Structures are given as C-alpha cells and as structure tokens.
C-alpha cells in the first residue's frame, strides 16, 4: 500500500513539474526587458525556486533522520536519513543546474565563487553526493551510520545560512521575491505558476522520500535474509 502511495505521489509530482515547465515557457508573463539581461532565461525561475524549496525539505528530512539515528538509534530514522540524502541530491542538482543555466545567460558566467548563497548551496549538494556515494561504498554498520549521521546533522547548519544569505549579503544572487514582508515583486500569474511548481515539487519530494525509505527497508530485509540463508547453508 505504502509503495503504491509513494509511486503515485512521485507520478503526480512529476506530472505537476512537467506542467509547471509548460506554463513557465508558454503562459507565464514575460519580465521587463530593462530588468534583466536575458528576460527569456528568467523563466527558469519557475523551476529553480521550487527545486530549491524541495531541496530544503529533503535536507530537513536528512537532519531529522540523522538526529533520530544518533539520539534514538531508530531504524526508521536511519531510513529517513538515507532518503533525505538521496532526495536532497536529486533536488540539489536540479537547483544548481538550473541556476547555472540562468547564470550563464544573465551574468555571462554559470558560477560566482564570491556569492555566499551559491557556495553554501553548492556545499549542501556536495554533502548529499558524499552521503549517497559514501553509503553505497561502505559496509553498513553502527560506526558508518554514526559518521554519516554526524555529517547530516552538522551539515544542516548550511540550510539557514543559505536561506538568509541574500538578505544579509547582497552579492550576485537575486534577493527573495516571496515572504519578504511586503507585497513582493511578482504579479498574480507569475505567483500562480510558482505556486503550482512549489506544490508539484513538494508532492514529488514526499513521494521520493517515501520510495527511498522503502528501498532502504527492502535492502535491509534482503541482507538479513541472505545472512540467514548463509547460516543455514
């Protein structure tokens, strides 16, 4: 049952993301030509911002899972840790890639090493890569889990830093357009496409986390069964 729910959410989320892209390309109003070097590339914002939002949800799951494993030794929390790392990697790469495409068009360079938000988010994505690849290459055990969980726990400090980075250090990355306290700088139709994107990515990331948790559970069961079989033989 859970498998069907997880796969259903993944499918609904993916369909919503594809719809967001279509709406962004064909329906969302264009921005002022004076405001941007590349107004067409601005449309990537409808993918980039929801992907970053979903990445924060995934890194939140990673934090809770890491803390749950370290303090409670809970198997469910360990599965949440692994799912958060995988989902964080997927959405982190989507955010970084879309940001690079926009940066190349708008700034003339895909990356700015002096911008705080770019670099803290890049570090978060690198953390997710380390956790996913590290878990795949290391034998499962308490020490290995403790190490990865500690990285997941302390790495989360980058999330609030990334969130407030453009409010504190206005370097190159544009400032916030929603949740600013005033009316914001996007009109109704733009806000609607952004909302569709945010909901779609949220559904997608929840489905992804549920699926990844199930994969880890199945891997653990398989290992257990194989160990039992080895004992019998």
């Amino acid at each position, binding site marked *: 049952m859970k*498998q069907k729910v997880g796969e259903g959410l993944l499918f609904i989320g993916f369909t919503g*993301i594809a719809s967001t892209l279509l709406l962004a*390309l064909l329906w969302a109003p264009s921005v002022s030509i004076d405001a941007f070097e590349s107004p067409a590339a601005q449309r990537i914002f409808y993918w980039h911002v929801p992907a970053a939002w979903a990445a924060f949800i995934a890194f939140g799951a990673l934090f809770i899972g890491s803390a749950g494993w370290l303090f409670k030794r809970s198997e469910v929390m360990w599965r949440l840790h692994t799912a958060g790392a995988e989902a964080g990697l997927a959405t982190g790469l989507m955010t970084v890639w879309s940001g690079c495409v926009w940066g190349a068009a708008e700034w003339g360079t895909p990356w700015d090493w002096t911008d705080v938000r770019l670099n803290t988010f890049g570090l978060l994505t690198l953390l997710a890569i380390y956790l996913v690849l590290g878990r795949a290459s290391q034998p499962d055990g308490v020490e290995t889990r403790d190490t990865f969980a500690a990285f997941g726990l302390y790495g989360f400090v980058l999330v609030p830093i990334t969130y407030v980075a453009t409010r504190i250090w206005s370097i190159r990355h544009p400032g916030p357009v929603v949740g600013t306290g005033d009316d914001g700088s996007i009109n109704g139709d733009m806000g609607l496409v952004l909302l569709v994107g945010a909901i779609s990515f949220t559904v997608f990331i929840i489905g992804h986390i549920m*699926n990844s948790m199930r994969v880890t559970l199945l891997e653990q069961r*398989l290992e257990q*069964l194989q160990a039992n*079989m080895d004992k019998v033989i």
Partner: protein
Amino acid sequence: MTYLAVAYFGMLVAIALWTYTVVQRSRRLNQRLEALEVAMSGRFENE
C-alpha cells in the same frame, strides 16, 4: 528561447530518468526478496 527549451527538456528528461530509477530499484528489490523467500520456504519444505 531555443537553448532554454533545450535546458528545460534536458532537466525534465533527467528527472524522469531519476524517478524511473528510484521506482525500478524498489520493484527489483521486491522481486529479489520474493524469489529468495520462495527459495527458502522450498528448501525448508524439502528438509
């Protein structure tokens, strides 16, 4: 606009592939588990 459409399409294909991989991993593991359980129950029945 063309490069943007290509970038968008590339991202969509990438996310579709990733989603497919996650679902397939789960299904493959399920099949392996079921096969192993059947093999083990058959072995115990024979003994």
